[in-house]
């Protein structure tokens, strides 16, 4: 993030959105001008199933305070089973994160469809709030300089 004047701490979030549902839902939130906090930085991926667990760990290592992965609702995945594959991976990941002491809520997973603009904004607001409560992520952060 950019250097700046000392302002109250704001969490830094990465969201992985699948192209077909959640990214479209996020666009629709824009078209409908539904407002939500500006803490997220989105990485568009073809499918939630594309998200490698490594990406999430890398993000935490890199000092990101929270990660959200959002895909299509069960049954709606553009690639049939990508979101199920993602869900299985995250089930494993959450146990790992718990084990290494990363708070619950720092890494979240959700389903948002292309039509759910309101829901998208709600999810982002909630995740931002959750991570705000948890405070800055320290556990995995590599000490760079």
């Amino acid at each position, binding site marked *: 993030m950019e250097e700046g004047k000392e302002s109250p701490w704001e969490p830094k979030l990465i969201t992985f959105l699948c192209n077909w549902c959640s990214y479209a839902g996020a666009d629709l939130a824009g078209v409908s001008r539904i407002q939500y906090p500006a803490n997220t930085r989105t990485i568009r991926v073809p*499918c939630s199933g*594309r998200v490698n667990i490594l990406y999430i760990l890398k*993000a935490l290592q890199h000092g990101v305070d929270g990660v959200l992965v959002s895909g299509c609702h069960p049954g709606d995945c553009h690639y049939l089973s990508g979101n199920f594959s993602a869900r299985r991976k995250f089930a494993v990941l959450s146990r790992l994160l718990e084990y290494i002491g990363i708070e619950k809520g720092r890494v979240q997973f959700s389903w948002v469809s292309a*039509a759910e603009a309101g829901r998208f*904004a709600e999810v982002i607001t909630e995740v931002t709030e959750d991570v705000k409560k948890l405070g800055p992520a320290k556990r995995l952060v590599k000490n760079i300089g």
Partner: protein
Amino acid sequence: MVSGVEFLRNVNLSNKVEVGKRVTVIGGGDVAIDAARSALRIGAKEVSIIYRRSRKEMPANPEEIESAISEGINIEFLTAPVEVLANNNKVISLRCQRMKLGSPDASGRRRPVLIEGSEFEIETDMVIPAIGQASDLSMIGESDGVKISGKKTVAVDPVTLASDKEGIFAGGDCVSGPWIAIEAVAAGKKAAISIDRYLRKEDLRAGREEKIASAKEEDTPLMPKPKAPRQIMSSLPLDSRKAGFAEVELGFTEEEAAKEANRCLNCGICSECMQCVAACKAEAIDHNMSEKTIEINVGSIILSPGFECFDPSADKLAKFGGYTSLISQYGYGKYPNVVTSIEFERILSASGPYKGHLSRPSDLKTPHKIAWIQCVGSRDVTCNSGYCSSVCCMYAIKEAVIAKEHSPEPLDISIMYMDMRSYGKGFDKYYERAKKEHGIHFIKSKAYGIQEIEGTGNLSLRYVTEEGKLHFEEFDMVVLSVGMKPRPAVIEMSKRLGIELDHYNFCKTDSFSPVNTSRPGIYVCGAFQGPKDIPETVMQASGAAAASAAFLSESRGELVKKKEFPPEINITGEPPRIGVFVCHCGINIGGVVNVPGVKEYAASLPDVVYVDENLYTCSQDTQELIKDKIKEYNLNRVIVASCTPRTHEPLFQETLQEQGLNKYLFELANIRDQCSWVHQQHPEEATKKAKDLVRMAVAKVRGLEPLKMISLATVPSALVVGGGIAGMVSSLNLADQGFNVSLVEKAMNLGGMARKIHYTLEGGDVQAYLNELMEKVNNHPLIKVYTKASISESSGYIGNFVTKIQVGPKKEITEIKHGAVIIATGGEEYKTKEYFYKKNSRVLSLLELESEIIKRSKKIKECRNLVMIQCVGSRDDERPYCSRVCCSESIKNAILLKDINPEANIYILYRDIRTYGLKEDFYREAREKGIIFIHYEPDAKPEVVPFKESGKEGLRVSVKDPLLGEQVIIDADLLALAIATTPPSTNKELSQFFKVPLNEDKFFLEAHMKLRPVEFATDGVFMCGLAHAPKLIEESIAQAQAAASRAGMILSRKLVQLPGTISFVNKNKCIGCGECTSVCPFGAVALDEKQHVAVVNDALCKGCGICSASCKSGAINLYGFSNSQVVSMIESL
């Protein structure tokens, strides 16, 4: 004695010209005046001019004459020289004679006639004759075959300057007689062009005829400024003039120049000042273009001449006798702060007059209170526009919401309307949000007039609300929501083409062939067919294309031009050179995000060699700019920071391809839909986010590589799901285009909902149409119909789908291969529990009422009081959409019933009557026929109780009449409910089979609400009819044709190109564990038994990347979203 021209030449070449003390100049032209004034300046004491005619005829510039006289030059008018008297070879005087004016000569000027005995002498020592010159034609003449005109000049063709003798051209004074130098220069150029063409043996004339358009009154702009006198330029004092040749006209002061420039010249049509040529950076203006007649052979014509806006200015109203219209009371054109909606749109626009700042015209102050007046030039028979313009309600809400968002200060908005017609898909939700979230006041009222409040620019609006109460309210600004009108030019056009127009001059069409004009082969789309919104226009446009494609199916493929891209530039091994284009998107982005800041920031990022900001990056000229910059800076990666890749990536990718760059060397940073639009109140955070998004994009593109697309053969047949009108029309059109179609219908018979509808509002016979359609479909050799069939499985992709269906009672499985699919699953009537429906035999749905009417049943004949309740199950919390057709359907049945049983009293209880477009005529007809309309609000819905007293029986309906302010009670014999249309429950299943989304109301969700109304984001899948949203029959038909057109485009291509973003394996890393093969949903990854590594089948891979996310050794990766690209995006944060 020296001639005027020679004298002036000498004066100009050197100052050493001798003049006498007394100089006499002969002549009345500019040369004469010039010679006289020059003589004065180089030392003559007395200067006279003698001229044969009077001052009125004098050809010299009047200002020059004025200046000459004021400098003391004596002009002898009506005087002719007779003889120069000399002594010792020196001129001593000039004998002259007085003249009078006789009858006009050939030039139209009155001929001077000598006055006998009026001779006199002027003492002079120098005579300068400055009289006419003649051409010296001694070298050429009639004997050479060159014709000489009566003026003693060479006769030429005015366009080519060719003389009568081939190969000889002439121009300049020898053609025109003495005339100004610039014309001679022009003639020289003209002759040169002719000679060039002559030598090349080209047509001398082609394209050179200049037609000067004469101004039509409607082209002449209104005089917006009062008449103002010219500024008088100060001039050199007389005594300083004689001292030399100093400029006499001293020029304007800054203030005078500004005043002069402010005078409106009211040029009318173009006066060829050429300022536009200089101003247009795109060099789009060519004044030499002339009208040409081109003949094109075509097999079919599509008409889309559009519409024009209703003009509410008083003088335009007067023209068609609209004096009586209320609109003349709104003061448009008189009060600067009364503007049209189109003008308001410009006010809000970033490229508009106030650069997107909300300001009012009179004083540029930010308005705090604005009113919109709806239906200006719509639903108004006094100005011959009895129809509804269909779009004004929505655009007014949109403008109001945007104004609220843009206004830096609190803004109070009222919309004065008759009926809020937000009937389109998703429109009612928008309307509700405008009310609830934005606090816009919607006032059901009629505006009667506007008066400006002196000295403030504010406006007092007089309006009457529903209860009949008169209000005066002050507003800072009033916006008139002007309607659509057919363009006057279409009358002439329709005559030439031999097509019929309706009574409003819209193109006449039939409900069952909404894109066909009255002449076969000529089709129509857009607002020329009737007022409509963008999605309907787009549907009709595609529909018209489909109709003409079927009409011309035999000659498909002829005359097609294929788009060719230049060969791809090889960038392997080259370091990244990134160009970043940051978009303002008008004020959509620039109004929130600091775009120059983002641009500057982008310039500081690694490998970025070019940055720019654009008002609209998607515009055509920016595409050219991007191409130029790619070339100029050798860019090999391009980033556009603007809207969403979901809509705009293909456009920019094509731009790259046009410049020879692989289209995958592109990335879009979404700083609008997911940034400026959703953080409108937080410009700083939004700017910071935009910078981050650009930085992430830079991190990604540094690792991008060129990718290859895969081409696969297309299966040239279609699957259509749903056998109602929409599905059948699509099938028939595709079959007529020459493609095989499988039509799958879940019921026993084709026909769908339309089986229960008998007439259209216009009187069209639905059953006759349906039967004909079913017969055509059933008998078409290319259509295979499956009834009682449903889909059980589908796989594949654009061009190559495989779908399994279960057919008949035994559910036999059939497999269908198809290249495209059209979903036309229709709608259902909502099963309401309200108002005793299905419990009391007097309560009917509209469809049931219609069938009773058709049967002329006893119920109908004996009915005394019929009540209809609108919006049953529509526009409520559960189904917050408008079912769109019910108002028209109710009015149709009401009119039908009234015609059968004129005694019946019919009451329609409504929330808003939504007879949009040309259907408004029928609403008017219904009222004229005595049908009573009572408005109710959702919080005071009508109440119904069955009653039975003193031998009478029926339903007691009570509703609050807003006009009376009281509850009215109607004892109804029959109650008809306008019940909502709902999507079939099977939509969910289908959406999963074909991987396409539903909206919140469970209708199918299109790729883009306005611009891609029949397509899904998933290629090769289309929709039409009620599957998309409730709509009228003609709209379903148009959309069905549109879907067929889009599907036909895919099927007609031999090959389909699949994206290059697929998986690939690094054999050195692969350990052959087989994880990827087990997670791949498409069986696209297999294990090579011999080498013991995974291999990807490029044609089967769809690029989801699940395999890559599951690979433990990082051996399998995804092009375009590779691990290293994603990680570098993360690390850039």
